[in-house]
């Protein structure tokens, strides 16, 4: 990844430190969710295997590339921002272990969003090249971020059941609208332009109207044909395979310690 900011200036060690923490948080979020799955009787190994085999779903957004430091900023700001809107609603989901995981996750996400926004602000107020880099990242991530809320309510196959079971508390379109309303003024503050010619405040509804989403792209991505699907799953598979010996060695070590203590 190119983590230079587009000029001679480079990303600082502090920035690398916070990004590392961000990644650790996210690993934790994965763990909370897999733990919730375990309460339903599905083991961690089973869940991971299903992910690697392409059977388990995961958020469409992870299939897009991250190529610049500005992308990191835009992802924190928009992707974590969209995740927060989703997850805040899910704190009231009907399945207890899932709801409790969401409460913890929401506390941590807000750090990511603010960190991302700060990166964007630094770039947007920087040199011309930096500002352009920020704008390009927004152009790239805006629509995929809107797609994170899933298909339109009319099209969503799982929504009805999820709403009936109160797993989902607000519809995809409601949450998407909430995200747009929240984010447009933030983009204005950054002095960046959201890549949507149809975006306009609607005085009658009190919400921002926005242009049509490219659902063909969305379905292509969730069916495995996004820019990075193969690469992402391959990285998971490799990590799982190459980490296998570590898991085995640690188990053997723990067993040996137990025997020593018993002796």
């Amino acid at each position, binding site marked *: 990844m190119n983590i230079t900011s587009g000029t001679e200036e480079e990303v600082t060690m502090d920035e690398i430190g916070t990004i590392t923490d961000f990644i650790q948080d996210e690993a934790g979020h994965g763990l909370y969710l897999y733990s919730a799955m375990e309460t339903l009787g599905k*083991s961690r190994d089973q869940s991971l295997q299903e992910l690697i085999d392409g059977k388990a779903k995961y958020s469409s957004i992870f299939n897009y590339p991250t190529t610049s430091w500005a992308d990191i900023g835009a992802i924190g700001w928009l992707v974590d921002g969209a995740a927060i809107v989703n997850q805040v609603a899910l704190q009231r989901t009907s399945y207890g272990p899932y709801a409790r995981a969401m409460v913890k996750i929401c506390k941590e996400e807000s750090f990511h969003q603010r960190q991302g926004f700060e990166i964007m602000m630094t770039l947007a107020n920087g040199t011309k090249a930096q500002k352009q880099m920020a704008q390009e990242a927004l152009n790239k991530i805006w629509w995929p971020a809107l797609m994170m809320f899933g298909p339109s309510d009319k099209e969503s196959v799982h929504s009805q059941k999820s709403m009936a079971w109160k797993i989902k508390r607000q519809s995809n379109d409601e949450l998407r609208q909430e995200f747009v309303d929240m984010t447009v003024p933030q983009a204005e503050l950054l002095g960046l332009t959201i890549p949507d010619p149809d975006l306009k405040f609607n005085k009658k509804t009190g919400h921002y109207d926005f242009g049509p989403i490219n659902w063909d792209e969305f379905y292509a991505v969730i069916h495995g044909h996004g820019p990075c699907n193969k690469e992402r799953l391959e990285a998971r598979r490799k990590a799982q395979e190459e980490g296998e010996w570590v898991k*085995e060695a640690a188990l053997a070590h723990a067993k040996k310690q*137990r025997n020593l203590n018993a002796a």
Partner: protein
Amino acid sequence: MKKDNQWPLWEVFIRSKQGLNHKHVGSLHATDQQMAIKNARDVYARRNEGVSIWVVKSEHIHASSPDKNDCFFDPANDKVYRHPTFYNIPDQIDHM
């Protein structure tokens, strides 16, 4: 099928600074208690959430059965006299 080398599951309990009881915060996998405590710190106490961590192997936890909640908790249902509001206190006494 590859061999199952899933690490044991542990439940994590954390006591916050305020001195309240240890509270269940989640679970994790670890090979032994030391690793479980360290991992618990790294996952569940990242922002000063607590001053003490307990870990217990999940297999050692026994739970009441939610299906039998009605009859299981029913001994408490007809004992209103266990609640302070059951007793009449003259109005002249503000607080008791």
